[in-house]
């Protein structure tokens, strides 16, 4: 197997250029998918026979919740790679995914609470699923806070990686909470392999929304990683060239200061 592509991608300048080319496609695809999902979900899909229109929260809630877990895993894996191979790029990916993951966790919580009021009669119940998702938010915030507290970027990344790895124990708790404890929250149906128990015209926009949200996250993380790379490598030649090129584009290349 030829690994040179891997090593080339691992170097900051080539990754930066790779991301620069990939990100717009991801962004556009995410937008299209999300537009279809929301239109399909909020307008086209029939109202649920039990939940009436309240069920439409699902089109935001489920993708956000799924992403909140996946991004934590991504963050921890990137952290492990950063620790083991001392790879700068992995450090940047890890740090970039924390705020994105935290935002989607907050979104899942918020939409869940809004949904909970009509369904369970309360914004909040102390249910295993809900509480462990809240803990997930704290873990994300912990990583962000720890990162902010360090001065040295590399030391910060290594510390955050260790914390993220230990926090990984919470992910299965969130996912399996509905099975391990008798929970108000409904069990896995949509996110389960096999035949989903949901009608097709409800499901199609939902799957589009899921994919769209994943692509949106990929876009956000790529862009944040690029930023982080520029910040870390400021002072190197490739960053100066990038910045000069960007400045040139902005000014129409008319003058050099």
């Amino acid at each position, binding site marked *: 197997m030829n690994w040179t592509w891997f090593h080339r991608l691992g170097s900051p300048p080539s990754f930066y250029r790779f991301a620069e080319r990939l990100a717009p496609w991801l962004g556009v695809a995410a937008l299209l998918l999300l537009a279809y999902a929301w239109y399909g979900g909020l307008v086209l899909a029939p109202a649920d026979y039990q939940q009436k229109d309240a069920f439409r929260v699902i089109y935001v809630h489920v993708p956000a919740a799924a992403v909140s877990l996946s991004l934590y895993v991504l963050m921890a894996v990137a952290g492990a790679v950063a620790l083991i191979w001392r790879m700068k790029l992995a450090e940047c990916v890890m740090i970039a995914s924390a705020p994105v993951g935290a935002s989607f966790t907050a979104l899942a919580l918020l939409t869940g609470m809004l949904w909970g009021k009509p369904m369970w009669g309360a914004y909040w119940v102390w249910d295993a699923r809900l509480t462990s998702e809240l803990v997930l938010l704290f873990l994300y915030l912990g990583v962000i806070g720890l990162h902010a507290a360090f*001065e*040295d970027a*590399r030391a910060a990344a290594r510390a955050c990686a260790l914390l993220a790895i230990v926090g990984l124990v919470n992910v299965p708790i969130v996912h399996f909470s509905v099975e391990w404890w008798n929970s108000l929250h409904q069990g896995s149906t949509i996110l389960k392999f096999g035949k989903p128990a949901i009608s097709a015209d409800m499901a199609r926009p939902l799957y589009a929304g899921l994919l769209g949200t994943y692509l949106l996250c990929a876009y956000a993380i790529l862009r944040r990683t690029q930023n982080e790379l520029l910040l870390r490598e400021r*002072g190197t030649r490739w960053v100066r060239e990038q910045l000069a090129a960007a400045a040139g584009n902005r000014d129409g290349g008319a003058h050099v200061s």
Partner: protein
Amino acid sequence: MPLLTADPLTVTRGDRALLRDFALRLDAGELVHLRGANGVGKTSLLETLAGLRRGAGTIVWQPADAQPHWLGHRNGLNPQLSPLENLRFWCGINGAATAAIAPALERLQLPPRARLRACRQLSAGQKRRTALARLLLQRRPVWLLDEPLDGLDAGGLALFAQLAGAHLAQGGAILMTSHQALPAPLQARELVL
């Protein structure tokens, strides 16, 4: 074969390189006196050599797994414990024999009463003497000392000269900083940053 070679070594603080592609070589029996203005990077260099700070470059010890004696601005003494207890802990950690503690404190002329008092109640010079006593508990060829003369009175300086001289005579090496001149019989190679 030098006991310690660093070539090249880049010492950084934050995102600033204090020393770039610096070369250093410490031979057996040699005392190197590191000098330089405040803030030039002496402490950072020593900490990098001791492995406390990440640097870029190659540092080669002879033998490869040698551990130096390190004495920085902080004495490494728990303020709640007495000098005796602190040194006993140090011996336990490093597998050194505790029998050497009493003679070492004697040699550094720490008053008997001070040996049993909690370190927080010692004077600055008494703490420094206790920290220096640690160097005698285990033979390690290289001593890395950051301003070891601070706080020592005239008698303390003479003692230091004696200890260091004996260490060098046994084939050890010392890399140290000091803004003062070294006490009398010591002969050093000056290295100005």
